[in-house]
């Protein structure tokens, strides 16, 4: 039997009590060895999708296979094939790093002789060798994430799920984690399913990105292809005199469609063609006698993609979205 490393999701729905559809009909496919970035604001349904794919929540309807196994029916087989680092770092504050590795190794059924060696190896790789004998409660946020990742990797999973792995991390820890994830995919062929609310993370790390909003996927593709879809760069300028805004807008109108500017008090236009229009723009402004304080050309970002698909900016969307039903189990019990 060949080792299946892909993820295949068809029409996945997860509904919570009260009819809230956290995941509302998702289709997606992740190929072996691919890093798939699941991008969306808080409450979009990212974590719920991960919980369903990792067998922690049964789907309401729809079908999903992970590593070739049905998540609803072959939970144990799915779990044996995957490694998971959930959003809340799941550590026991009273145990040391190497004790965590040994406990996890034991529960995963790794032979005793191999347990210690493999644990040390992974701790070394995530840079925790020096802290291996300290209790997890003394770890910094970045160290906890790295230990969590090491635990997820202990049984050599073919597919790795990372739920917002860098939320709350400083830039340095974030970069280190990105490098490790990229290395896993590159050198060991591990498939990575990663959720994030950071554009940059999806852009840098993922081979392919699915953008999720309110439980449905609104766009999917490689970061470059997605950006090419909305594609046009935007020019944004601040007139020296606030009273000249109207004149500036008029001067820019022939070049493209006005869009919401990133900063207040400026004017933004998405260019019809490419950046080569810039010289014409400057000339037009000159002719209209608009003195410019600041002019910038923005290449499209994934945020522009999100904006184009949902009409909202990714940063702003987080506040509007309903909170993720994190306490779904409590509710199920109540």
């Amino acid at each position, binding site marked *: 039997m060949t080792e299946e490393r892909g993820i295949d999701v068809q029409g996945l729905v997860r509904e919570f009590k009260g009819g809230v559809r956290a995941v509302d009909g998702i289709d997606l496919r992740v190929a072996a060895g691919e890093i798939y970035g699941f991008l969306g604001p808080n409450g979009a349904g990212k974590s719920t999708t991960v919980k369903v794919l*990792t*067998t*922690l*929540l*049964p789907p309401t309807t729809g079908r999903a296979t992970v590593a070739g196994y049905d*998540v*609803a*029916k072959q*939970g*144990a*087989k*799915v*779990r*044996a094939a*995957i490694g*998971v680092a*959930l959003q*809340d*770092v*799941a*550590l*026991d504050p*009273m*145990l040391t790093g190497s*004790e965590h590795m040994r*406990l*996890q190794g*034991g*529960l*995963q*059924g790794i032979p005793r002789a191999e347990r210690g060696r493999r644990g040390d190896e992974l701790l070394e790789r995530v840079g925790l060798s020096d802290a291996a004998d300290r*209790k997890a409660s003394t770890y910094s946020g970045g160290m906890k994430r790295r230990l969590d990742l090491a*635990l997820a990797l202990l049984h050599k999973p073919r597919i790795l799920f990372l739920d917002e792995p860098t939320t709350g991390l400083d830039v340095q820890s974030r970069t280190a984690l990105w490098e490790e994830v990229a290395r896993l995919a590159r050198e060991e062929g591990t498939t990575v399913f990663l959720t994030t609310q950071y554009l940059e993370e999806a852009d840098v790390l993922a081979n392919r990105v699915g953008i999720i909003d309110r439980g449905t996927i609104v766009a999917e593709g490689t970061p470059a292809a997605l950006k090419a879809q909305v594609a046009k760069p935007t020019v944004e300028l601040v007139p020296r005199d606030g009273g000249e805004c109207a004149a500036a807008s008029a001067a820019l109108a022939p070049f493209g469609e006005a869009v919401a500017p990133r900063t207040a008090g400026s004017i933004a236009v998405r260019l019809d063609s490419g950046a080569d229009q810039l010289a014409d723009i400057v000339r037009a402004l000159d002719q209209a006698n608009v003195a410019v304080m600041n002019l910038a050309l923005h290449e499209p970002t994934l945020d522009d993609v999100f904006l184009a698909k949902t009409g909202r900016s990714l940063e702003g969307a987080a506040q509007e979205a309903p909170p993720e039903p994190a306490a779904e*189990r*409590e509710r*199920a*019990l109540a």
Partner: protein
Amino acid sequence: MTALAHSALPSQVGLLAGRAIRRILRQPAQLVFPILFPLILLAVNTSGLDAATQLPGFPTASYLDFALAIPFMQGALFAALNGGQDLARDIQGGFLDRLAMTPMSGAALLAGQLGGALFMGVISAVLYLAVGVAFGAGIATGVAGALVLLALAIVISFAFACFGTFVALRAGTGEAVQGFFPLFFVLLFLSSAFFPRDLIEQDWFAIVATYNPVSYMVEGIRSLVIAGWDGQALAQAFGISAIAIVAFLALSARALRTRLVRT
């Protein structure tokens, strides 16, 4: 796969029990307070209520002998409470989800959790008995009785641990488990732990103490200390504890299934 998980059960239980014990040992406050507090209360009560032994019909001349059963109960209560809170913290912090991702069986999780409680139960029971004897308590049933007493104390401790585990699995938060503390307290104080049932003057109190199962657990331990072999008292104490263990284990197993909804 399932067969593999089952064959690994003893090893999983060992790992999880080891972790529970380690966790207790690393929180000295969790170890010292539950053991020390009952001893302080024993000293205070022994001095304060010694006068009660002069009442006609009081079953022994030493209040220390009479009250020796109380620390065992309190130790069991504290161990259950702390164990429950540890488990609730696992649930809240997501550690249970991490365990759920491994081939661990639910039974192993329960057994490991209760293993930690059992460990606390054994340590504190031996200690209470040793301190009691050192301060002059006499065990009417001798060495054999002391062993039965230890066994009973451990069984009782296990029963309360099952209760604490159930509450933790059901409620899932440390606060909720803490909220049960007053109930434990009420169960102990509104029993015949501090005064013989037939000498309680207030009728309503005597009725409550009669229907309170904790009374019979206390009286079982106490019979070994002050009265000698009393088959009925022992049968009641072991019986009630056994019923509690079976009931709360079953409830815990159900609550765990709901909690671990993994497919």
